[in-house]
């Protein structure tokens, strides 16, 4: 049967769209590699500090992005520590336990949270600290913990929605069969549904981590500064890669300083790639473990 012309137009424009996306990502990668790669070296990371001394924390780094890199890792760790349990818990509640009324209420809250721009979270954190200082803790100040707290608010919707959707995708026939075999609701959720949904939950968490690593607006109002050294405690100000990039791009004084920003941007890109790779690896492991089959990526 001869297909109508409109079909061909539709198909080729979809193909073009896909090529456009590939082209854009490719150009971005190429541009960053071109600008950033020449700056890569111990100097970019550690300035004129000896790399081993810097890594062991024996000597402060002044001209490199090492403190910002460590700051970003700390920020991601603390944020995930704060958000993983409530986020996944809320997702499980929504998918398995909530009554329709509660579902509606919580989903509205999640949608509202997801719609809030990140700068609003930053402003929230900032005003919270001002309030705390006046009312309860005069010593309270913007810090790593506050930034992580506000970031966790920002990424909660990602985690909740991914967990909920992953659980809802578990076929109801399986649950029904398990019920008929006499399994309790909790057994079904934790022995069947959650393990089957792990892939979605993990990819949600990785997405959330990526968001933590890249967000600038929240942290610039809640504790990230241009120069702080390695993060010393939860209550101290810190450096972070996206803030370093933003800051250097906006205020560079010389070409060398600008190159530092490109180097840092490339590092952030690699960090994101590493996380995607990790997600893929977990997925593969999960499939092998639960389904005993070699997933298609390995074949």
């Amino acid at each position, binding site marked *: 049967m001869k297909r109508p012309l409109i079909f061909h137009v539709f198909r080729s424009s979809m193909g073009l769209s896909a090529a456009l996306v590939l082209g854009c990502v490719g150009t971005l990668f190429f541009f960053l590699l071109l600008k950033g790669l020449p700056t890569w070296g111990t100097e970019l990371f550690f300035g004129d500090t000896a790399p081993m001394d810097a890594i062991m924390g024996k000597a*402060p780094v002044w001209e490199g992005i090492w403190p910002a890199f460590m700051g970003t890792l700390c920020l991601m760790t603390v944020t995930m520590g704060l958000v993983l349990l409530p986020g996944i818990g809320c997702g499980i509640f929504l998918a398995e336990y909530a009554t329709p009324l509660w579902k509606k209420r919580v989903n509205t809250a999640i949608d509202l949270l997801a719609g809030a721009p990140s700068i609003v979270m930053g402003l929230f954190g900032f005003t919270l600290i001002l309030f705390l200082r006046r009312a309860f803790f005069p010593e309270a100040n913007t810090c790593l913990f506050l930034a992580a707290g506000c970031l966790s608010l920002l990424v909660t919707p990602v985690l909740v929605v991914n967990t909920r959707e992953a659980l809802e995708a578990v076929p109801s026939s399986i649950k029904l069969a398990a019920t008929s075999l006499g399994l309790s609701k909790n057994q079904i959720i934790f022995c069947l549904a959650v393990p089957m949904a792990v892939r979605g939950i993990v990819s949600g968490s990785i997405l959330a981590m990526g968001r933590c690593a890249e967000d600038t607006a929240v942290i610039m109002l809640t504790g990230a500064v241009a120069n702080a050294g390695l993060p010393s405690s939860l209550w101290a100000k810190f450096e972070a890669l996206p803030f370093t990039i933003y800051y250097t791009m906006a*205020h*560079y*004084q010389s070409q060398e300083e600008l190159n530092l920003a490109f180097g840092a941007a490339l590092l952030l890109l690699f960090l994101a790639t590493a996380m995607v790779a990790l997600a893929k690896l977990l997925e593969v492991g999960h499939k092998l473990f639960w389904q005993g089959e070699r997933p298609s990526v390995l074949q």
Partner: protein
Amino acid sequence: MNRLHILSLSLLFCCLTMGTAPATTLKDFQGQKGTVNIAGGTAHIPVMKAAARSIMSAEPDIRITVTGGGSGVGVQQVGEGLVDIGNTGRALKESEIEKYGLQSFPFAIDGVAVAIHPANPVSGLTQEQLIKIFTGEITRWQDLGGPDAPITLYVREDGSGTRETFEERGLNKAVPSTNSNVSNSNGAMKTMIAQDKNAIGYVGIGHLDSSIKALPVDGMQPTQENAQNGSYIITRLLYMNTKGEPQGLVRLFIDYIYSKDGQGFIAAAGYIPKSKD
């Protein structure tokens, strides 16, 4: 000149030098620990960073964090007590001093120079011409003896101390045309002017180099010496501000900026050190 004269003169000299450079050295930080948080004017950052680096290298128990944000942020953050030192590239307003109880410490002089592309043959402007250019009344270089080309205007962002100084002193408070391109730092401004043959903009005198050409205004040459002796008037002071009288480590840090080491950092950043009042 008799001996007494020489003696009194040298005594006077000693007093003066002691007055200009407080005897604070790195030794005074020995055994100290704690944190000093600094935010505000971006022009201050190189000086603050250099001082922080020198102090923290000598005393690892001291932590000094430095960030920018602009003069407005500096006032607000130090006023709210979020940082210990809030930097501004302008004098505090009466209302700000009253609201927060701030104290100012001017420590450096910075001049703002009008700059164009090095290939542009224009060699000087009058203030009147400058105002006409930036308000959009003169739009072509040939009206100023330059090539047959349109003028591209470059200004700094809102809230920039450099911009405020330039508009107040250089443009006599005239408002620049909305048709101008905005750059966020001296570095970015320099790059933009160096890449645009028809550009005119302004940078801190300390940032002048061969990639751009500085223009005299009304015959005033934009140099550090002229900014210091007052014959170049498009200048401003850089301030550190504290909430109330600075104490402990913050006091030491401020004194250190006024010390000989501090003056070195200020000069290296392209500004002229100012002695403590």
